[in-house]
């Protein structure tokens, strides 16, 4: 039985796990964006927070993913459900590229332009929303793109703690020494990563100031 036959025969399960995978990534990315971008903005306003925040996100990034899933198991409420745990771990991993790109994006806006805005009597909020964020948007979206592609790959490991997703096939395939099963997880996961990369790449290009 070749790979395609397997996919066709098991298409309900493939679709189900793909959907699970997309939800894991989607939900965690949503939370990460809601936390990471405001944090990135915050550290442009309070430079003293810059080091601890970026440092913290950096440290999270260095924890091996399997270990992070393990560390989070004893956490109350979170550890009770594999899905929650996977979402939290993926969220934590996505933070660094989001915070860093938001920060560098805003800091990279031409100083003369920002100063002109300030000199014309724009409040900090007006400066942020009308000048800095629009001009940094391309770089920020690039961060979202990196984080998403990263998450799609990482989410396969969530299956190790029973959170589902395409990793199910991969782990099952490893246990059963079945290439087809491994491919049935790996190929759709790779395809998802590609689609996310291309899609967000397009958005990034559209939103970058020329």
């Amino acid at each position, binding site marked *: 039985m070749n790979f395609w036959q397997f996919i066709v025969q098991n298409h309900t399960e493939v679709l189900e796990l793909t959907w699970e995978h997309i939800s894991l990534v989607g939900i965690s990315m949503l939370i990460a964006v809601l936390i990471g971008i405001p944090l990135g903005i915050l550290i442009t306003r309070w430079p003293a927070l810059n080091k601890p925040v970026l440092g913290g996100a950096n440290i999270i990034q260095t924890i091996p993913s399997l270990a992070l899933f393990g560390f989070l198991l004893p956490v109350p409420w979170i550890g009770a459900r594999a899905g929650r745990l996977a979402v939290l771990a993926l969220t934590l991993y996505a933070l660094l590229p989001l915070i860093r790109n938001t920060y560098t994006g805003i800091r990279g806006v*031409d100083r*003369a*332009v920002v*100063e*002109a*805005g*300030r*000199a*014309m*009597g*724009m*409040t900090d909020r*007006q400066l942020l929303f009308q*000048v800095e964020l*629009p*001009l940094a948007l391309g770089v920020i979206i690039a961060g979202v793109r990196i984080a998403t592609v990263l998450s799609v790959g990482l989410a396969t490991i969530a299956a190790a703690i029973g959170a589902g997703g395409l990793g199910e096939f991969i782990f099952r395939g490893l246990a059963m020494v079945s290439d087809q099963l491994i491919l049935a997880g790996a190929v759709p996961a790779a395809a998802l990563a590609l689609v996310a990369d291309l899609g967000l790449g397009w958005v990034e290009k559209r939103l970058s*100031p*020329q």
Partner: protein
Amino acid sequence: MNSSPRDGVAIEFRNVSYCLDGGRELLSQLNLEILRGETLVLLGRSGSGKTTTLKLINRLLAPTADVVVDGRPTTTWDVIRLRRMIGYVIQDAGLFPHFTVERNIGLVPKLEKWTAERIQKRVEELLQLVGLDHQIASRYPRELSGGQRQRVGVARALAADPPILLMDEPFGALDPITRAELQREFQALQMRLQKTVVFVTHDMREALLLGTRIALIEAGRLVALNTPQAFLHSKDPLVASYVDAFRTDLTTPRN
């Protein structure tokens, strides 16, 4: 600490110094009165403290002692109100690259919550005032020439009709011909509008051409304050050395 606002004085520096965090003094004990309707040129080399002086007026830098605008120390002003009554023009204009010309010029009126029609009318008026075709209103700064950008920068600074205008080497990045053109236009404009202008430049010819008075700043100190005529014939050795430098520049072309 408040003086009665003396008529005729728009901006006053009272013994103002400015130090960097590291302690290096950029400006030391400046005393200067800038009169209503005059163009005061701050002349000096790069790093002499001209721009620092300018930024102390609209509080882009925080003053150590009183900088008085309209009879009130700037520290007692609401900083947003203060800045909106002071136009600001910088080298290369500092236009917002993601805004059209129209939105760039209409920025302060929009912040001041003017109606859309009023803003549009004002933008057209200003484009005409600075000698630009109204067709460029929908263009982006990157689609303009350097001279056009600088004109838009002036229009933007004038948008809400501020009584004071700060200009930091506004024509510094332009080619000599465009620069001469804009200098002439600025003269004509200033004749009509009679704003209080503080103009920073290191170009003595520009200072002589545009200034009502010239303040020569050297290493953070005000060393001379004169009308262009008096400046040109000053016996002060520092001023004379400046004038000489330019004179040789004019009369002895290199081979």
